[in-house]
């Protein structure tokens, strides 16, 4: 049962992607939804098993490691799998408006969408360093394919830069894998961790792999490619890029440092990784505040929020781990909602320049509400998932007297308030002179379209994450990385 569920997570979307590419147009919809909608249902038995046993292992096709590839699901992988399933389904429902499954451009979009979903699920399941490289490449290629699906010049340029850097990042990761294999004689992440010890070569390999992944996850100061890519992608693609694609690389950095190198991680590097995060929070927030385009502001906000994920390293401990994992979840939901709302605003107003959006809330009440609610979670006001994670993170910093980290987290919250209140103030502004946007016209039909409801549901999900965090936190506590004691 569990084996079937695990296989379904990867192969259902993968087979659907292949089918979408070849079946006649009118049948595409059936395959798209049969590839996406069962994903949450497949996660239910897995959730039950992880809750009961803490760790689910499966040797794919019966070949045990080191020869075969092992799949492992622990609490962290499960949480990210849930996020991926929710994003794939909900953002997918939204995307069905822009890319109808029966249309010419819909076919290409959905094949890539399903491939991306499948690749990310495979990445989250895998415990094999080389298999992780393969899935990471699949994620990158599918994501960049989606980014250029409309063929806009700005998106093409951003995609080319993203692709070059991602390829370079993959090379560094692969070089690290080669060194690890040369030392440990195995590619299994957990076996290799046990066989290696502190030393020049393993640490070099770890640093190389981390550098590659830092590029792919756009951690400051290697974030250069992200704003243009996320800010120029089609709406639903921006949502999945920010909510999932960059996160899986950070997830992999966590896997390497907290699992592979649990016993031999170089202690001097932990504050350095934290400083990268702090730089991301401050720099990303300030630049988000300076943007003139709403979508670019949301993209820079992603640069800033990714920084919190790196604060796990200096705040290493049960609290810091729960906080960072929960941040990954709540930011994923909130940021997806935010990009979808912004995409609606862009579609209806014809622009996302902040100086031309005054009074947009009259025409787009639903999307303005979504933007505000998602903003609540991003800046960490109660009751929201963002509040829970930042509160836990503050506690973790407090517990180790990490005043620098405490100050950075608080400053990040204030800066987030600054850059998020600015567009809301503009959207709700009432110009003194009568303008077209404020002529008392009723809310437009597009503003109340069901795709807006989907975005609102994601934002409400981010809020709900703040009301009932207990089950997820309890689950995470059962799967603490080795070396972190509760």
């Amino acid at each position, binding site marked *: 049962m569990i084996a079937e569920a695990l296989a379904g997570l990867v192969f259902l979307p993968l087979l659907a992607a292949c089918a979408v590419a070849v079946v006649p147009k009118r049948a595409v919809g059936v395959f798209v939804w049969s590839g996406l909608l069962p994903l949450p249902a497949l996660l239910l038995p897995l959730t039950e098993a992880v809750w009961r046993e803490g760790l689910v292992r499966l040797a794919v096709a019966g070949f045990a490691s080191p020869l075969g590839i092992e799949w492992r699901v622990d609490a962290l992988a499960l949480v990210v799998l849930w996020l991926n399933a929710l994003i794939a389904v909900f953002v997918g429902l939204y995307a069905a408006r822009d890319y109808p499954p029966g249309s010419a451009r819909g076919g290409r979009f959905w094949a890539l969408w399903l491939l991306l979903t499948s690749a990310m699920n495979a990445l989250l399941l895998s415990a094999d360093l*080389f298999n992780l490289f393969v899935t990471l490449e699949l994620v990158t290629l599918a994501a*960049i394919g989606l980014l250029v699906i409309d063929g806009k*010049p700005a998106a*093409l340029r951003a995609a*080319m830069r993203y*692709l*070059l850097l991602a390829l*370079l990042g993959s090379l560094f990761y692969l*070089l690290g894998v080669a060194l690890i294999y040369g030392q440990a004689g195995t590619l299994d992440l957990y076996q290799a961790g046990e066989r290696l010890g502190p030393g020049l070569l393993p640490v070099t390999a770890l640093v190389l792999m981390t550098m590659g992944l830092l590029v792919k996850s756009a951690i400051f100061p290697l974030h250069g490619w992200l704003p243009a890519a996320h800010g*120029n992608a089609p709406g639903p693609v921006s949502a999945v890029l920010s909510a999932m694609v960059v996160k899986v690389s950070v997830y992999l950095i966590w896997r390497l440092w907290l699992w592979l190198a649990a016993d031999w991680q170089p202690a001097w590097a932990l504050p350095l990784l934290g400083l990268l995060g702090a730089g991301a929070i401050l720099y990303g927030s300030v630049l988000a505040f300076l943007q003139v385009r709403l979508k670019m502001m949301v993209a820079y906000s992603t640069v800033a929020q990714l920084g919190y994920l790196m604060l796990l390293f200096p705040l290493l401990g049960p609290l810091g781990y729960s906080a960072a994992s929960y941040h990954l979840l709540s930011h994923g939901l909130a940021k997806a909602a935010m990009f979808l709302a912004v995409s609606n605003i862009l579609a209806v107003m014809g622009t996302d320049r902040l100086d031309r959006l005054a009074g947009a809330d009259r025409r787009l009440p639903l999307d303005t509400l979504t933007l505000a609610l998602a903003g609540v979670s991003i800046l960490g006001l109660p009751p929201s998932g963002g509040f829970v994670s930042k509160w836990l993170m503050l506690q973790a910093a407090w517990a180790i007297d990490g005043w620098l980290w405490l100050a950075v987290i608080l400053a990040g919250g204030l800066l987030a308030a600054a850059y998020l209140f600015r567009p809301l103030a503009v959207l709700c502004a009432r110009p003194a002179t009568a303008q077209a946007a404020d002529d008392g016209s009723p809310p437009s039909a597009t503003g109340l379209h069901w795709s807006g409801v989907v975005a609102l549901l994601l934002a409400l999900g981010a809020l709900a994450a703040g009301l009932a965090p207990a089950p997820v936190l309890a689950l995470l506590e059962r799967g603490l990385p080795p070396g972190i004691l509760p």
Partner: protein
Amino acid sequence: MSHAEVWVIAAAAVFGIGLYSLLIASHLLRQLIAIKVMGSAIFLVLVVAAGPIDGALDGLPKALVLTGIVIAISAIAFALALLVRLAEVTGSTSLEDEADDDR
């Protein structure tokens, strides 16, 4: 100098050549070729670093390199397609003369 060291030095040299061309090239085609060259150096390391363990030849690194080559070809093919499209749409084959994309 041992057999392995020669290959590692060769790999480092190839990697350096790739990195150098990547840094000085502005044409995207040259940059892609540079990345491809760096990739070949890493495949070389993968074969050498894994090496024969206890005198027995280990087949796994060869399988990895084969898989790696397939992935590299797909990625480069995708990048070339993207480059062609970029040149068609923007008329530019470099990222350096980038215009401001504000609408």
